[in-house]
């Protein structure tokens, strides 16, 4: 049995070596670069990065935007996933296409489409004004709010699909059993559906947060250079400042945040899964 299991494990070899060569190795080299100055081991680049208040504000903005994006995506995704989990046949296909198709429209195209929506004399402002909700147009483009809304939109499928997958697997008799035991819809949701869907929520949040903390194109297009994020700072270090050490340091910080999020969430998902 073990022999067989081991041989089956060999199937993972191509994937693992692919990841090792294309992903782990270059990142490791980057990490090395961030702790080396003239061939000497040193944390000086990190000290320099963290003692600059501008860098700290960028770091905080990046984390804040990623958290808010994840939160917004979760709020929108959860009810969607519930509806999808109950949908059948035609409507299920509609939902799945609606989730997957937008991924094939590049972020650049989407971002330009949003400018039509969000700009000062854009569709949204015109509507708000004609409804009398505001008198003067609200500045939406180039704001953090627009960035969060845009990012949540782009990453929504990564939140919806894991939650949907977990809810879909859930035995529909469980909420019914809860109802027959006297549980109100709210009690059923809080004590049956929600706890059973948590592994999906954790996975969706990990995906979305990892994507949001490292996003580059969306903030570049929506808020531009004025409000930098860590990824934009990294790109600027490499491309304009030609400061590889700084770029490597920022990349490594991003990577560490992402790794800790993934590890924490897989630990959480395992714990939640073990309870079931």
């Amino acid at each position, binding site marked *: 049995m073990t022999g067989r299991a081991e041989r089956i494990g060999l199937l993972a070899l191509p994937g693992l070596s692919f990841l090792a060569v294309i992903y782990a190795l270059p990142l490791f080299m980057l990490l090395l670069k961030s702790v080396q100055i003239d061939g000497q081991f040193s944390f000086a680049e990190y000290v320099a990065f963290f003692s600059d208040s501008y860098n700290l504000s960028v770091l905080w903005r990046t984390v804040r935007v990623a958290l808010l994006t994840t939160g917004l995506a979760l709020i929108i995704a959860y009810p969607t996933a519930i509806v999808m989990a109950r949908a059948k046949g035609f409507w299920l296909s509609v939902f799945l296409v609606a989730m997957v198709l937008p991924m094939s429209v590049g972020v650049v195209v989407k971002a330009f489409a949003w400018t039509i929506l969000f700009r000062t004399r854009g569709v949204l402002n015109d509507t708000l004004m004609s409804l009398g909700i505001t008198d003067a147009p609200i500045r939406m483009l180039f704001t953090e709010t627009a960035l969060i809304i845009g990012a949540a939109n782009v990453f929504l499928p990564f939140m919806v699909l894991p939650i949907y997958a977990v809810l879909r697997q859930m035995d529909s008799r469980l909420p*019914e*059993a*809860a*109802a*027959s*035991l006297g*549980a*109100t819809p709210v009690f059923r949701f809080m004590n049956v559906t929600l706890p059973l869907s948590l592994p999906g929520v954790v996975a969706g949040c990990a995906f979305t947060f990892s994507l949001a903390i490292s996003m580059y194109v969306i903030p570049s297009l929506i808020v531009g250079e004025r409000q930098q994020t860590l990824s934009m700072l990294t790109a600027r270090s490499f491309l304009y400042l030609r400061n590889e050490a700084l770029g490597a340091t920022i990349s490594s910080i991003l990577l560490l945040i992402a790794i800790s999020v993934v590890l924490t969430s897989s630990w959480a998902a395992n714990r939640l899964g073990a309870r079931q």
Partner: protein
Amino acid sequence: MAPPAPRDMGDSKYLDVNAVGKAFKGTSVMSGMDFRVGRGELVSLLGPSGCGKTTLLRIIAGLTTADSGEVLLDGRAITSAPAHKRNISVVFQSYALFPHLTVAENVAFGLRARGHAKTDCGPKVAEALALVRMSDFAERKVAALSGGQQQRVAVARALIVDPVLLLLDEPFSALDRKLRETMQVELKTLLRDRNMTAIFVTHDQDEAMGVSDRIAVMNAGQIEQFATPSELYARPASAFVMDFVGLSTRLNGEVIESTENRSTIRSAYGTVHAPGTFVPGTKVTIGVRPELVKTRAAENTLRVTLADAMVLGSKTQLHGRAEAGDRLLCEVPGMNSDYAPGDTVTFGWDVADSLVYETGT
């Protein structure tokens, strides 16, 4: 928990399902369904798979909405009450235990849903677990339990809330035969002691016979007969009920002559006599319970070639060679090895022991 109350056989209409109809996507599952259960009665819904048993159960529980008709419980209409306001507990076929909760948390669920604090549930949970002999498993995860243990937890979880009615959808179907029989006796005793009104759904006639005061035999969304097990066996209301409840010798034939309450019928094995008056030419099905068929001449006598002789311990079953759709079956008491396949034997029974139905009913 619930005070003892006198049991009746449906006269009180404790549960009164009145002219209920239900269709799924235009396909009618049942229409004009009437079904009455008395307080403290143990009733089975018996019928083949797909005949609408689960649907009826779900309508009573409030998990499926009826298209028409009404459901009354203890004189009050509950037709439009949501499931969580009915206080009707359900034991599902797959038990539907909450996988993220322990055994004790599963059992406590109904109390917590009623607003009891977690800490207050302890004594009642302990009592309910003791009732189903699962006290040692309180802190276990439900996935680690065997089928029989899961069923006990499901029963404890359903009973802890003192339901006004307990519904069980094929509760024994996931258990192996031996365990099934033990659990049936256990559960019946438990429900009796508490004077619980309960409806069992099953497609297994032995199970229905064993656990219930009365059995409603369902076929294609209709209740064909609702009677005590012995009444069902002795006087089935239709050929369907006769076939579904117990075995029988069964002959198809055509009435050639009929006088007052006695008909002569031509079958593939010769003419036989049966009670009842029919228009000559009527196609009928005759049934005789196998223990009423003797291996000697009687008012009706057939010469039968044996296809098989099965020694079953307390009885021996003789299967005669029969046309498609017919069955020739005789049971003699005890282990009897005088018979072998290929033997020619006499099957005999009295006219009064025959059941006759117009074919197609």
